[in-house]
């Protein structure tokens, strides 16, 4: 189980994921060797799942980001699996999330501009299987995006 030291380290790491282990140790008031060992252990235990580099798609020329919310045809037993498998083959899809609620699946889709988006939407999105309804939310700005947890 996690003790106070683990939680302190995690809090610091989640608040600033790009910081090095030495900085995290110092901010948590823990010796660097201890911090390294503890973080290593939490990674082995699967509490820390992954540390991924964030790619800024705007810097690569992708100006448009749309959150597409789908309702699927639930009379089709394979609707979720088939839909998700097909969505994985669309390179511009950044996230696939499934929900309990009015929305079944959400895809985050990026495109270079509106024309490119329209092309993807028509040729790759509308052709995904078992869709009964789609709603689009166009991203204007991200005000907060943190993995921090109140631990």
């Amino acid at each position: 189980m996690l003790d106070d030291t683990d939680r302190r380290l995690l809090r610091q790491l989640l608040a600033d994921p790009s910081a090095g282990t030495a900085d995290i140790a110092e901010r948590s008031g823990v010796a660097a060797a201890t911090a390294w060992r503890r973080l290593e252990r939490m990674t082995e235990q699967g509490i820390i799942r992954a540390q991924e580099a964030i790619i800024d798609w705007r810097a690569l020329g992708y100006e448009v980001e749309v959150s597409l919310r789908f309702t699927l045809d639930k009379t089709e037993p394979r609707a979720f699996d088939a839909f998700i498998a097909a969505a994985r083959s669309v390179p511009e899809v950044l996230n696939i999330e499934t929900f309990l609620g009015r929305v079944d699946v959400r895809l985050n889709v990026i495109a270079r501009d509106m024309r490119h988006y329209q092309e993807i939407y028509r040729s790759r999105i509308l052709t995904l299987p078992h869709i009964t309804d789609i709603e689009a939310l166009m991203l204007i700005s991200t005000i907060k995006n943190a993995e921090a947890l109140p631990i």
Partner: protein
Amino acid sequence: MIDLDETDRAILRSLAADATLSAGALGRRVGLSQPAAWRRIRRLEEAGILAGRRISVDRDALGYGVTVFLGIKLATKGRVSLEDFERAATAIPEVQIVQHVLGLFDYRLRVVARDIADFERILRRRIMTLPAVGQVEANVLLTEEHRPGPI
């Protein structure tokens, strides 16, 4: 915007999966010396393409078993209400993501909670009391998957 070659793309794909890879390990993967790999990483950082790290943790193991996405429509609009809403929403510790969107809703929020009862408490005490908050739709996250994107 800088042009990416196949090696840059391979580096981005590797780091998007594991940001902890050293320049040496990365170089071996893509067939570069350690200094050459390091220079490539620096260039991608300077171009703003590599924009920090994201840590993914097992929220369940940390006691946050419920993640909910909220779609929020503001009851009154205007610049002042947007700023007030954003400031107040960002300050809630359980709110991880605040996005201004265009479409059916005005904002998208990701909220973490210990369980459904805890979520109800956050919804009633923190969300429904946000300035200018109108209609709120909640969808409980079941699964999520990050995709590598169009690299």
